[in-house]
């Protein structure tokens, strides 16, 4: 089916099931229980899971396959957001033209930047992409304020033309983004017992886009084109010696991943119609690098896992505060309780970035293949245990 091998098809189905049933899976705790704060099944967060998942899948096509580390990918996401919001302002509130335009605009920008940056490789490529992204960020903040809205960001207004739509609703409000009458922010709550599951139209729209993008990524990974990109990663010199010009391939990969970023930006603007320059800052580019590495660069499922992981813990960890910690450890004697809370406190709440930094360092140091490699190692270990002592050892690690 879909021209996929069996293992890839399983992966695609797994991703599809996970995303489509996310409102159930992410809400394992009853709504009014003490554990409810670990529920991630609310629309805003779920949308971010899939949007950043798309962003990371795209980044992985460049970094995971070709090994070119771009530190400026957030610029394409920002450009995509601006393009989408301008579509909402000028054309109509339908998300389809907005997303199409954001993909096209991001594609054009990445074609230009990629064409220049890909003349160099290694750290020079990273610096060039970083320089371009920082330039775009600085310009969006200052000179391009008429187009980008500057510091306040680009917002919808009541007097926008919206040629095919309406400038304002009959009640005098700004219309909301929608898809042929379905409003993106509409939700439907399903209460089963004390569990409440929220089904949001915007989320399902993003989820379908994610599944489509994931399918496309699998096809790219398994295609001769993807094989060529992997060859570039493993030894570009040898590729050149065989008389092959690798530049068109890397440029194509760069543009594809830029378009993925634009798609993510367009979706982000469709869920919440505003765009700001801070989405283009280099820390935002760093974030997608983190997601990809954390999940496992070069693997199919890794970036999606990484994006979900980071966004989940960012939201959940930063909500935990000292009071909640005290509740958790209330069973301990007072002195010990205060001690443990004092130790844990810097890592939660506002200290979430500290945890993220440490985690990221740990992954780079011990698990260069990310969460996926971690999972594989555990699986191999369990298999090795099951096989018992008859098979000697199993996989051996080469000495460093």
């Amino acid at each position, binding site marked *: 089916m879909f021209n996929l091998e069996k293992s890839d098809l399983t992966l695609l189905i797994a991703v599809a099931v996970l995303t489509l049933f996310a409102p159930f899976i992410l809400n394992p705790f009853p709504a009014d229980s003490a554990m409810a704060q670990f529920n991630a099944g609310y629309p805003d967060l779920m949308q971010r899971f899939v949007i950043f998942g798309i962003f990371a899948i795209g980044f992985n096509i460049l970094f995971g396959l070709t090994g070119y580390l771009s530190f400026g990918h957030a610029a394409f996401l920002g450009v995509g957001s601006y393009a989408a919001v301008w579509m909402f302002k000028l054309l109509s509130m339908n998300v389809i033209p907005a997303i199409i335009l954001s993909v096209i605009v991001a594609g054009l920008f990445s074609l230009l930047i990629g064409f220049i940056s890909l003349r160099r490789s290694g750290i020079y490529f990273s610096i060039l992409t*970083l320089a371009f992204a920082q330039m775009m960020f*600085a310009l969006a903040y200052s000179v391009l304020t008429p187009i980008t809205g500057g510091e306040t960001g680009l917002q919808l207004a009541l007097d926008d033309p919206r040629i095919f739509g309406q400038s304002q609703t009959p009640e005098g409000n700004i219309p909301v983004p929608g898809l042929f009458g379905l409003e993106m922010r509409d939700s439907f709550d399903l209460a089963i017992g004390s569990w409440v599951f929220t089904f949001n139209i915007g989320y399902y729209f993003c989820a379908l886009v994610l599944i489509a993008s994931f399918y496309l990524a699998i096809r790219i990974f398994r295609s001769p084109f993807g094989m060529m990109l992997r060859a570039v990663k493993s030894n570009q010199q040898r590729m050149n010696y065989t008389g092959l010009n690798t530049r068109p391939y890397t440029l194509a990969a760069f543009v594809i991943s830029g378009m993925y970023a634009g798609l993510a930006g367009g979706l982000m603007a469709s869920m919440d119609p505003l765009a700001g320059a801070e989405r283009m800052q280099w820390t935002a580019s760093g974030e997608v690098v983190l997601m990809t590495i954390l999940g496992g660069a070069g693997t199919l499922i890794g970036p999606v896992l990484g994006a979900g992981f980071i966004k989940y813990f960012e939201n959940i960890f930063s909500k935990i505060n000292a009071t909640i910690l005290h509740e958790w450890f209330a069973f301990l004697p007072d002195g010990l309780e205060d001690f443990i809370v004092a130790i844990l406190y810097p890592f939660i709440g506002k200290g979430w970035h500290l945890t993220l930094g440490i985690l*990221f360092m740990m992954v780079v140091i011990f698990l*260069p293949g990310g969460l996926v490699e971690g999972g594989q190692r555990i699986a191999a270990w369990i298999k090795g245990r099951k096989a018992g002592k008859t098979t000697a050892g199993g996989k051996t690690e080469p000495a460093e």
Partner: protein
Amino acid sequence: MDAIILQILNGLDKGSAYALIALGLTLIFGTLGVVNFAHGALFMIGAFCAVTLSRILTLSHTIIDETQKDFLGNPLKVDVPYVHDIFGVSAGNAIIDWAVPLSVLFAIPIMILVGVIMERGLIKHFYKRPHADQILVTFGLAIVLQEVIKYFYGANPIPTPAPEAFKGSLDFGAIIGFDPNIIIYPYWRIIYFAFAAVIIGGVFAFLQFTTFGMVVRAGMADRETVGLLGINIDRRFTIMFGIAAAVAGLAGVMYTPINSPNYHMGMDFLVLSFVVVVVGGMGSLPGAVLAGFLLGVLESFASMREVIDIIPGINQVIIYLVAIIILLTRPRGLMGRKGVMEE
């Protein structure tokens, strides 16, 4: 003419900071071959050494002063810094006033220690890993260091003033024959520039004229052969890492009066410093210094009103623009050596 001189002067202090950080980055890259994304964090830690010392110096205890009364007639409570007790009131006040210059002495051992721990504890294990891994792990380290500082010092900038004696400005124009009050330049920025010049000169002299420096230079040229001669080159490179950290830290210490330190100042400078290093030529120490000053001065020229009127926004992007042009036309940077980091 006067405007041009003024812009050159304005560019020098920022250029000094770029040059110092870029020098440290290049030292690390040239010796250990490691791309250190945590170098901006070292700059930031240096700045917070100054903050810490000024906090230590102003540690106070409260006494009840019988000679002063508040409006109700009760004796007034006064905070007395401990340095007053130790050195007397006037000397104590002078010490507090001179907290930032004193921090230089305070910061050197701390920064060398931080650098050595960083190299031995983390970076040592990354020599043989690809550059991408080095970038990523030091990027993670930078986040961690930044967040630790944020946890202890908060997210707001902490004003750390220069000593009273250097608060004013020098009428530079009057000295070289222009009308007074046209080219005025704060004393502290002159000091910063002079300080940077001394440090840069010191590092170069150290590498050029000492046996230790000679060995390090030999190691930069051919690490393996130096090792085969029975020299423990790793230990020397570790010390160079400490020195590079100290250079970045001192740049941070002295920068505090110009710009109040906050926890993300390192990241802000890091991106620019990398651009500086790349423009100067990866692995070239003179190139890093030259590019640092060059880009600092260019940046201040680009922020002249006349220039902005012609090309709006140029002041925001000039450095990146120059970097892109240099990278595409002179792939090795201004003074890069052949064969260093060329893929």
